[in-house]
Structures are given as C-alpha cells and as structure tokens.
C-alpha cells in the first residue's frame, strides 16, 4: 500500500493549507492504531463501552 500523498497539492505552499495548522498524530499513535495486541484489548474495551451506552439508552425506552 502506498503512503498518503504529502506532495501533490493545488496550492503552492504548505502553510496555505488548512491541514498545516491541524493536530497530527505521532508515529506511536499511528502504530498503536493497527498494533494487534493493543487493538484486541481496545476491541474488548470499546465493546464494553458501547454496551454500557446501549444499556443506558434502552433503559429509557
């Protein structure tokens, strides 16, 4: 898979792009997003969180 393009732009200067002023993730953050052991843990954690929202919301019905 090729890398996201950082060069091709309709504008001449990077500073003129809104993205220049945006927060960007560090290498560690990007690595963890697809690091399997960490993501297995996140899978369990996010599912728990979503079930808590489902429980809380369905209690209102």
């Amino acid at each position, binding site marked *: *898979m*090729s*890398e*996201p*393009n*950082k*060069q*091709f*732009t*309709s504008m001449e200067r990077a500073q003129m*792009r*809104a*993205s*220049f002023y*945006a*927060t*960007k*993730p560090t290498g560690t953050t*990007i690595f*963890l*997003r*697809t690091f*399997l052991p*960490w*993501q*297995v843990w*996140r*899978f369990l954690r*996010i*599912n728990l*969180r*979503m079930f*808590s*929202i*489902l429980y*809380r*919301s*369905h209690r*209102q*019905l």
Partner: protein
Amino acid sequence: MARVVVLGAGISGHTSAAFLRKWLGKDHEVVVVSPLPTYNWIPSNIWVGVGLLKPAQVVFPLAPVYRKHGIDFRQARAVALYPEGDDAHAQPFVELEYTLDNKKGQRELLSYDFLVNATGPKLNFGATEGLGPGKHSLSVCTASHAGEASDFFLRQIQEMKQGARKRFLVGTGHGLCTCEGAAFEYIVNLEFELRAHGVRDKAEVIYISNEYELGDFGMGGIHLRRGGYITPSKIFTESLYAERGIDWITRAHVQKVEPGRAFYETLEGEEKEITFDMAMLLPPFSGVGLTAFDRKKEDITAKVFAPSGFMRVDADYQQKPYEAWRSADWPSSYQSPAYRNLFAVGIAFAPPHPVSRPRTSPRGTPITPAPPRTGMPSAMIGKAAARSIVDMIAGADKPTHTASMARVGAACVASAGANPFTGTAASMTVFPIVPDFERYPEYGRDLNFTTGEIGLAGHWIKILLHHMFLYKARLRPGWAVIPE
C-alpha cells in the same frame, strides 16, 4: 382486531414492523408499505461506493421475510393520508399507489387503526442544480447509487494507473444537508482505497461541507476526554484529514454542479468554484411529499406535516432563537399532536430545529447541517413507537414509551478504511445525542459516556455490526435480542 400500517421499510420502519409483529397477537394485523422490494443496510453503502462490496451484499428482498413472519407486505408508495376517513369510509385510511411490476400504478385505499410513518427522506437532489446521479455528481444514499459511484471510482483508478491525475470532491451538495458522517466515511475510505491501489500520489482529495467546523456532523460537534484534555471533535477530524492528506472546505453551500465543476457560496458570502474529476455529494433531505385530507377532503397537509414535508410529532415547533433551544423541544413519543393513532419515526419525523448552531451567509443563505436521525436512534424510536402502539391497542390511552434523542445515547462506528489488518474506524459513543445543557451545562453531554477513538478494533466492530444487523433485519432466530 386492529390493523397497524407501517409506511416504509428502512431501519426505523422495519424495526417497528418487526416488533409490532412480535408483540401483537395473531389477532392483529401488521402491514408494511414500501415502494422498494428490498431492505438496504445503508451504513454499508460506503463500502459499496468504493468497490469493496456489491450492492447485492447490502440488500435483501423483504417479501419472503415478511411472509415468513406473518407481516403483510405491499410494494407501493403512500400518496395521501385520510386520518379521519372520508364520507365513504368511517375508518382512517392511507391511499397507496403500487410500484410492483404487475400492479404498477394501481391505487388502493388501506384502512388502519394505527399508522407509523417511517417513509424516511426524499433525496432532494433537485434543491441544487446539477446535483445527483444522472446529472453531474454521484451519491451513496442507496445501494444502486453506491454501485454507480463504485463503477465510476474504479474507472478513475484505472485511468490513474495509466498516469492520469484526478481530483476527488466529496461532501455535502447543499447548505442544509445532513449525514455529514456518511460523507466523512466515504472520503476516508476513498482515500484508503487510492492508497491500496497504489495511485494516491496521483490524487487530490477534497472534502466540502456545510459544517461550520470539521467534526460537527450535524450534532454541534462532540467533546471528548483525550490525552489529558477535553478536546472538540474538530481536532480529531482535522487531524485525520491532515494525516491522510485530505484538504477541506467548510461553511459551504453548493449552489450548482456542472460537468467537472461545482459552484459554492461560503458563509462569508463569497462565491467560489472548484473543479473535479469525480464528485460524491450528498443531497439535502425533505419529506416524501405525503399529503393529508380531513373527512370533507379538505387539505390538512400543513396541520399534519411541517413545511419540510416531515411529520409533526410531539415536539415544540415554536420558532425561537438558538439561545432558547432546550432539550425538551425534542419529541419523545413521536405521536402526532393532531391524531392519536398516527406516529412518525426515523427520518420521517420533523425535528424542532437543528442541533448545530444555525448560521446564514450575508446573502441570506442558511448554511447549517440538519440534525442526523439515522442508525441507532432511528431503530430505538421505531421500537418505542411500536411498544406504545401495542399498549394503546391493549387499552392505554396515550403512548407508554419514549425515546427522546435528548435522553438516549448512540454508538456509532465510522469506517476509515476497510482491511482486516490495516483498516481503521472511528468508534464513537455520545450521550445524549442532542446536547442537554440543563443537565450537562458545560458541554451538553455526559463526558463519561461520550467517547471516541480510531483504530483497527473499530473496523472489526464495523464488520461485526454489518453482519449482525443484516442478520437481525432478516429476522433470523434470536433477532430480537440483538440491541438496536
């Protein structure tokens, strides 16, 4: 015996019909009226639009499912409501026009004891000149639209592999669009696929939106606890776009689309244009155009429906400034104030006002996202209305169940690239959906239950949800225990 008619078989209508059938005894009749023969799991249309799924993988025929479960299915569109009946009919009825091939154009008057309006939106491409399939832009709102978008996208990739450079424009095609989340999902999936095909270096990818800031999503944005700060969703969305090399234009009302060119007005009142090789621009929504008549056949459409065409329910529709908006303005039972046996669920109910702060350009053009009413809240609303109707048939004098969007939360998984090892998705929870600044004065939401993160785990959950909700929609064994 009571007859409950459900107009529409989208997420909300289908949920309503399924629970009505489950909870009502066999003495009662459930009829579903839908102009389309199929159910579409719309959230997965995004993957159809980038060529990862075929349209057939996100739809299934409704008739066999309904036949098996004792639900009467009429493939027809509702044309007019007669909530008081007329001189010839004592009971309320709805006028239908069949869309089924062998009955196409035939009309029928279908009486009801209770009616659930779940007609969803009219995809109002006509609001912007040149917008939409068959004109100059693409859409992923239906499985067939997404199929067309996919074919076009894959052709662009082939041309890029031959050396062509392309500009992709994705976003909202009008200043009053909703579903910015779908546009977000489409652009990040499109960008991911360009990389997967090895042509990212030949592509410019631009997001155009009516949102005031990225990450608004028609919900006024959300705040999350992350990295030691309470951070608005704008930061995370901008960050993802910047990381992926996606440029963005916000506060934009697309006025006109021509072949390869879109014209837009900004909130500052400037008129601009942008060229493109492929544009996927979502349309604004309106009601499907149902009319209503009283017993004397006088037009009461304005009494039953809001000017947008969506149905009035138990919301506070009094016009008031943004500062005076309250969570209590939002409906809870979804019952029509005019007729006790009439409910509107999902996108078909008229919201009292947007969630995002309304803004208008110096030329007077409103550029404000409309409130989202899709997915989990739609299904929950459909279920609550079904429960109320069942109880009212059993003797309750008013709705017994509520699902105010200002009282319930939602879990949402937005795909950011589909691959079992390198894909990611944003997993979000919000509570409540509509901010309640009386209960949560600082941010309008409970930050313990308003969360979000991007990662591969989210993609696995998205895959799981795709299969789980299609299983549930097919009403396979145990469907009712799968939460909405």
